[in-house]
């Protein structure tokens, strides 16, 4: 790991001020950042430790009836918080599906949003080609091992996927991201937080330089009863998703009143499945309707040499996750 200076911030303003120095980065749980620094992918000159900013470590009910989860709340604390478990079980399920207990005890909610792709070519600096790591250098994954890569929303410059489970649930729950920066505070809807790669795959999110995530806000609970997070992976635990599906339903008997569905492991950002949602809303839920809706959602998928299986897998995962959500509540 290259040398860097270290500063401990005690409040949001001092953290933002400290981050103005060139090459500075915030560090929270550090589980992704230190890994990238050890691998020679990230080279911060200064780390601003934000973990002692107590105001960002709380979970509180909002006047709207929603829930504010501070950016520094650890993934494990968010997953075990009583309000999250009771009113936003989908979020608890997604958090518990990610990483390991040790990592969840370290990783923060804000840091999880900032997780970078796990594309092997991005991580391994022995490969000179990676537009995300070295803009303009090319993409080694296009002709390489791309089994884990994107089938939706990719570009000729980058086929990497976002690795987060939490963000997939946040996409389905219509969360908003609160940020503060040199120009003040603003709110970013989760659907606009992560970017598609386009011709700038080096930029993962729409955060501006120097901005700090302060919280993730959830709208008033809509999906306490019918949710399911299905994660399909190469081993039963402690692995990134091949495909994941966050499903949240409001049911009226057998009829779907509201459906929110988001996919993970298929694109550069959590993929909100609005086509499938529309196809099942207002309809009696059965496997045939769901299969048709899932096929429509994946109609524009562009599989690569190594990941054609993901197209069918994503469709079957949508069917199973939505059916499970309809039949049960709160199951992971």
């Amino acid at each position, binding site marked *: 790991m290259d040398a860097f200076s270290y500063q401990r911030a005690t409040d949001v303003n001092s953290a933002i001020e400290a981050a103005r120095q060139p090459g500075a980065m915030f*560090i929270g749980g550090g589980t992704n950042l230190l890994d990238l620094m050890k691998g020679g992918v990230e080279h911060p000159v200064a*780390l601003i430790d934000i973990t002692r900013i107590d105001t960002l470590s709380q979970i509180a009910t909002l006047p709207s009836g929603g829930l504010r989860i501070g950016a520094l709340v650890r993934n494990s604390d968010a997953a*075990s918080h009583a309000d999250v*478990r009771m009113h936003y*079980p989908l979020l608890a*399920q997604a958090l518990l599906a990610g990483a390991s*207990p*040790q990592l969840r005890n370290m990783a923060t909610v804000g840091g999880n949003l900032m997780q970078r792709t796990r594309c092997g070519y991005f991580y391994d600096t022995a490969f000179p080609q990676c537009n995300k790591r070295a803009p303009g250098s090319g993409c080694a994954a296009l002709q390489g091992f791309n089994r884990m890569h994107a089938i939706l929303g990719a570009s000729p410059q980058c086929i990497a996927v976002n690795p987060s489970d939490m963000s997939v649930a946040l996409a389905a729950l219509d969360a908003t991201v609160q940020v503060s920066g040199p120009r003040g505070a603003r709110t970013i809807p989760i659907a606009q937080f992560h970017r598609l790669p386009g011709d700038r795959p080096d930029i993962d999110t729409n955060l501006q330089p120097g901005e700090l995530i302060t919280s993730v806000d959830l709208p008033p609970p809509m999906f*306490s009863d019918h949710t399911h997070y299905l994660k399909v992976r190469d081993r039963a635990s402690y692995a990134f998703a091949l495909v994941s599906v966050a499903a949240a339903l409001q049911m009226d008997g057998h009829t779907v009143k509201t459906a929110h569905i988001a996919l993970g492991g298929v694109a550069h950002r959590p993929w909100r499945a609005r086509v499938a949602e529309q196809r099942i809303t207002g309809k009696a839920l059965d496997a045939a309707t769901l299969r048709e809706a899932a096929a429509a959602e994946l109609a524009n998928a562009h599989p690569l040499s190594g990941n054609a299986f993901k197209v069918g897998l994503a469709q079957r995962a949508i069917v199973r996750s939505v059916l499970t959500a309809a039949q049960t509540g709160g199951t*992971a």
Partner: protein
Amino acid sequence: MPLASVRVHPSMEPPNAMSHDRPDDAAKPAPLTDTSRRRFLQTAAAAAAWSAAPHGEAKSGQPGAPSAALPPAIPARSVRLTVNERDYVLQLEPRVTLLDALRDHAGLTGTKKGCDRGQCGACTVLVDGRRINSCLSLAVMHEGQRITTVEGLAGNATASPLQHAFVEHDAFQCGFCTSGQLCSATACLSEFAAGSASAVTDDVRTPPSQLTDDEIRERMSGNICRCGAYANIVAAVRAAHEASA
């Protein structure tokens, strides 16, 4: 590679350089330091820089070109860590991980370095009672927190019930992952007792009623055992849980 970039990683230090103080049984000990180790490292760094010079020059390309600007070295600073209820004052650069601070500076080599990238769990320690991967955490970020390593699990030189269970159930072969497994399992049992759910819990809205083998496997999945002693590890965790229930 420019000459000035040559650095000595703590892991290059030979084992016999560990001449600093270690915890002992003396009551009210002064905080432990690693000053003698720093002196060794400074000498070693100078030697390494000297011996690496020809190689560095040979690879620098363009003779006469100004060498690439490098960030100035960040000096070590005093970091006070509380490990197993003892205070350690260590001279650490900010980039020293908690794992390297424990092993190479505090001399607590019970915690193991497996992958060093957060993928195996061998480096698991408890911080304020919570299990973390010490390889993916900076030591300087843990000032003021209560760190427990495998050396601190036993009380009064008596193995903890979980440690007994690991011996009883033969829950290891080579033993390299065991200190991480023990720290992780210690937290696993306290997390379950506190009502936490897992990815295999039927309904996350209610605490799981039983610590089934499926629950144990999921909750211990952050600790890889290359020897494959999983069946006996699960049995040991189950036994320790049942004994405490």
